[in-house]
Structure formats: structure tokens, C-alpha cells
């Protein structure tokens, strides 16, 4: 039955339907989840923006093979766009604000992507690392626009009058859910189109792709811009969620957290981005609650999640390069293979 669903064409229709189902399920879940636990709802909003940004990074790093350590800074561009737009147009619909943030970040990504398309491996990592560390300084320097070290506040979202029974936190999660579902539908679709194939072809072999007629540099810039647009959208949501766009919200660790999300989820799989986002939001909290039983010193407790994610990088690269989703896929294949009891000689790809 699942196979028949998978055969529905065009793919946009199928993925749209799947996205709708997922969205409805998540929306119901949002209603069921205790709205009087604002912290949990706040965490869910964080999952939304982390998932969007991780999905974008998955397209860039997993599918196209370009490593970016600067996506935290790109989220910063999105967040600051939101803050600056809202400063002059306080009542603007969040949909327009998010679109503006996405667009501005996409334009910024064209510049970075054009440079990135000429860089490989460690050079690209170093350049994007410079972006992650350099951009917050720009926000501090031009403090009359961006509010300096303290940042710029973003007014919190309130539900429209017709829906005033909904708590503001829940409304925020609702507002976050919509762009998240749209992003995942579009990206899932993109992965299966000509562009997705071009991305993967360029990742596997640039020279062969060029011989085949794929414009390598253009494909890489396109991947970067798409990915940057996702980061911008995520940054806008982050600004709405935290009511603030400040240089301190976009440290190098944010970029590394996003990388951790896609490494945990498995490089190159979109469902993996959701897994990764869930892990990076809920694991720190889980460690905190675990601590109530163990009573570690606060310095240890605060830093434990980061140390854990660092260890995940190391362990994942040494032992488990396909992440949670890759592991699940492999288990699934193992099971179905055993059931059919015929060995199909398929290469277990990373996608």
C-alpha cells in the first residue's frame, strides 16, 4: 500500500498530500499537548526552526557535499531582517516578515555561495567558519541599526481575535508549523527532481557531472542559496520564538549544533533533519531532568549536552556515518530482505 502511494505522480501532489497529513497530525498533537506547559510548547517551536535549518543544511551538505559551518550566521541574517522589518512595520503579517527574511538571506547566500562554489573541503569549511565568527561582529559595529550587543527586540506573536482562545505559545508553535511543513514538502519534492539529481551528481563526481552537461558551479550556488533561504526562514522563526535578535544568539556553537543535527539524523536524509532537530532540542532538557536525580555541579550540567554532541560527531564519523535515519533504513532493509529470503544486491546508498 505504501508502495502504491509512493508511485503517485506528480511527486508534488504526493508530497503535498503527505505533508498535509503530517501537518494535521502535528496540529492535533499541538492541541493534545498540555498548553499549560508553555516550556514544552516553546521547545516544539524550537524544533520547528531547527528542523527547517537542518533540512536546508542537509540539502547543502548531505546532497550536494558542501560543508557549511556558517548556517548559524545565516540564521542570524534572517533573524535580524525580521527584527529590523518589525521595528518599522510593527503589525506586519508574520507570513510576509518570514518571506522577507527568507529572501534577504537568500540574496546574501548568493554572494557566499558564489565564493563557496570555488572552494573545496577544508577551504570551504574555513571560509564558512569565518562567516560564523565574523558576522556577529558586524551587528555589534553597526549598533544604530542592529542594536549592538544587546540586540533588537522582536514583538511576540499574538493570535488574531477570532482565535483568541489559543494561548500565545501554542499560536507560535502553530505559526512555526506552517513554514516547516511547506519547507519539507518543497525540499522532499526537490530531492526527486532534476535539481536533486544534479545536486547528488555534483557531490559524487564534479568532472563527470560537468561532462554530462551539468553546470557544476551553478548547481553548487543554487544548493547554497536554497539552503541559505531555509536558514533565513529558520532565523526569522527563532527571532519570533525568542523575541530577540542579538549577536549572542548566533555563536559558532549554533552552526555546530545544526551540523550535529544532520550528523545525528544521518547526512543527506530529510527525515534525518527532523530527528536531529528533536535530539538537539530535547536532549539538553532531558539531561537537565536527569540531573535532578544525580546532582552534578551546574558547570558540568550546562556543558554536558555540548560535550555529548561533540562526542556524537566523533563517534558518528568513526562508527556510524549514516546517523539515526540511516540506521533505521538499514534495519528496515535487513528485515524485509530476511522476509523475502532473497538477497538483493543493492548498494546501500547514503540517500
Amino acid at each position: 500500500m505504501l508502495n502504491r502511494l509512493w508511485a503517485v505522480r506528480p511527486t508534488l501532489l504526493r508530497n503535498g498530500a503527505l505533508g498535509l497529513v503530517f501537518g494535521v497530525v502535528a496540529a492535533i498533537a499541538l492541541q493534545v499537548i498540555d498548553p499549560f506547559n508553555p516550556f514544552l510548547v516553546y521547545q516544539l517551536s524550537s524544533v520547528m526552526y531547527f528542523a527547517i535549518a537542518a533540512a536546508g543544511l542537509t540539502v547543502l551538505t548531505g546532497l550536494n557535499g558542501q560543508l557549511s559551518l556558517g548556517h548559524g550566521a545565516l540564521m542570524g541574517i534572517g533573524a535580524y531582517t525580521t527584527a529590523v522589518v518589525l521595528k518599522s512595520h510593527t503589525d506586519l503579517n508574520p507570513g510576509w516578515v518570514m518571506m522577507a527574511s527568507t529572501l534577504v538571506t537568500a540574496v546574501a547566500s548568493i554572494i557566499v555561495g558564489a565564493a563557496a562554489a570555488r572552494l573545496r573541503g577544508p577551504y570551504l569549511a574555513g571560509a564558512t567558519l569565518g562567516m560564523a565568527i565574523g558576522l556577529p561582529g558586524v551587528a555589534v559595529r553597526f549598533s544604530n541599526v542592529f542594536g549592538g550587543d544587546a540586540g533588537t527586540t522582536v514583538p511576540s506573536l499574538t493570535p488574531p481575535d477570532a482565535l483568541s482562545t489559543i494561548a500565545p505559545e501554542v499560536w507560535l508553535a502553530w505559526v512555526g508549523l506552517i513554514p516547516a511543513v511547506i519547507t519539507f514538502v518543497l525540499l522532499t519534492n526537490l530531492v526527486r527532481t532534476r535539481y536533486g539529481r544534479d545536486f547528488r551528481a555534483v557531490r559524487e563526481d564534479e568532472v563527470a557531472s560537468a561532462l554530462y552537461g551539468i553546470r557544476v558551479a551553478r548547481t553548487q550556488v543554487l544548493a547554497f542559496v536554497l539552503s541559505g533561504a531555509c536558514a533565513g526562514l529558520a532565523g526569522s522563526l527563532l527571532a519570533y520564538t525568542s523575541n530577540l535578535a542579538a549577536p549572542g544568539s548566533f555563536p559558532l556553537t549554533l552552526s555546530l549544533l545544526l551540523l550535529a543535527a544532520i550528523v545525528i539524523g544521518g547526512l543527506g536524509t530529510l527525515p534525518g533533519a527532523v530527528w536531529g532537530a528533536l535530539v538537539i532540542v530535547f536532549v539538553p532538557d532531558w539531561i537537565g531532568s536527569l540531573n535532578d536525580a544525580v546532582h552534578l555541579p551546574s558547570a558540568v550540567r550546562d556543558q554536558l549536552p555540548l560535550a555529548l554532541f561533540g562526542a556524537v560527531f566523533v563517534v558518528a564519523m568513526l562508527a556510524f556515518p549514516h546517523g539515526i535515519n540511516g540506521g533505521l533504513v538499514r534495519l528496515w532493509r535487513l528485515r524485509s530482505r530476511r522476509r523475502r529470503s532473497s538477497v538483493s544486491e543493492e548498494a546501500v546508498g547514503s540517500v
Partner: protein
Amino acid sequence: MSYFFVLTLTGIAAGMIYAALALALVLIWRATRIVNFAQGAMAMATTYVALAVIQATGNYWFGFIAALAAGLIMGAIAERGIVRWVENGPPLNAVILTLGLLLILEAVVPMIWGAQIRSFPAPFSIASMEVGGTFIALSPFNVFTIAVVLLVMVALLVLFRFTGLGLSMRASAFAPEIARLLGVRVGRLLTFGWGIASVAGALAGLLVAPTLLLYPNNMDAILVYGFTAAVLGGLDSPIGALVGGLSMGLALSFIGGYLGPDLETAGALVILIAILMVRPHGLFMRTAERRV
């Protein structure tokens, strides 16, 4: 004294520190074709070791030596224990691995020593010197910085050019298979290479801490400067690292002095991208990298 001259002198002193970190990156790149993004974090950790030893013994030089020794050990452990297993894998994996080390170090150090900003002692005064009645922008500590980095450069040059150990190290970096056939213990030399590279990194951490202060991610920006310096020098040449470091020091000093100190890191980013676009092989690269 003109402002320009002041900026030039402080730029040279800062540039020597960037050169030391660039040197660490270059040595590791030459040996294993890996950029060690954890180099800054390792230097930060060894500087905390130095601070602990200084506070325990009351003597700066014990801390100095402890930091260098800790760098040697940490680099060797990182190579033998972790990096060895991805050395022949895809470059992306090695990068992610060193980033994992960075995260671990920046989380474990505040677990042990706390996350608050600490001051770090200097063995000599960091106030400007007075020469012939006028103050020049150079402090005795700056002079010490320049001297000790140059000393390390010369020592490494002697090691690589004039000793059998250096010859084996160059051989195992240049052609590991052939070196192995000729009886060179390639693996051990790679471990040792990471060790001495981390000593250079630890030196950078010690030299930057008195002015920059010490906190768990104080080396993040210095890592970007060092990387830019190393790329400027071609990522493959120790002399290039020195020249690149000095150029970065001067450029950032002028950017900070004339445009505002908050723009230094962004300036480094612009310089890095400009170099990579215009001259991706750096100024001192001997072999051509791939071109697409």
C-alpha cells in the same frame, strides 16, 4: 608617534601569534592533509593547564612549560586515538571529526575550570616601553612574543632540514607508502608531527591570553585568523605561515584601528574569501591544487 606606526607595531606583535597558530595548522596539513579545526580549542585547553600550574606553583615558567607539554601530549593523543581512523576517509569526515573535538574541548574545559572570563599573567610587562623619552607601542611582552615565535620557527626549520628525524617526517608526509617500504615508522611520525604542531598551537594560546583574556572560546576568532594566515601562505609552507601571520596581523590591526575593533573578524573573512578567489594556492604553494 603617528597612529599608523602604532598600529603597525601592534599588528606585527599580533601577527606573530597568528603565525604560531597558522604554523600548527600547516604542520598538520602537511603531514595528514587535514585542517585541524580543534587547534584553537586545544590551545585554549593547554592555556587553562598553564593557568592551573601557575596558580599552584606561583611561577609563570612552570606553567609555560606545562602548557607546551600538554600540547604535545594532547596532539599526539588526538592523532593516535581519533584522527588515525579517518585519515584515509573522505575529507568531510575528518573536518567533522575535528569539529567534534572542538565541541568536546569547549564543553569539558568549563566543566573543570568554569566558564567565567579569567585574566592570564604575562612574564613581562604588557605596558608600552619608553625608548629615549617617547613611548613606543611595543611592550616587553610583545618583544618576547616576537622572539619566542621566531625561535620556534628556527627550531622547526632545523628539525625538518638538518636532522634525520625531520627527513623521515618529510618523507612520511610526502610519500607514506614508499617511506613505509624503506622502514620509516610512518604512523609514529604522524603522531609526533601532530604533537609538535600542537606545541606551536599551545604557544599561540599562551601568547594571546594576557591581552585577550582566557575563556572557553577565546581562540575561536584566533583560529579563523590563523587559518586565513595559513591559507595566505599556501597551507603547505611554514615560511608562508609566518608571512601570512604577519600580513594578517597588520591587516587586522589597520581594520581594527581605522574601522572599529568589532569588524576585525569580518575583515578576516573578507580577506580569506578574497585570497581564495584570487589566488587559491596561496603565495607559497609549490604543488598545484586541483582546479575545476
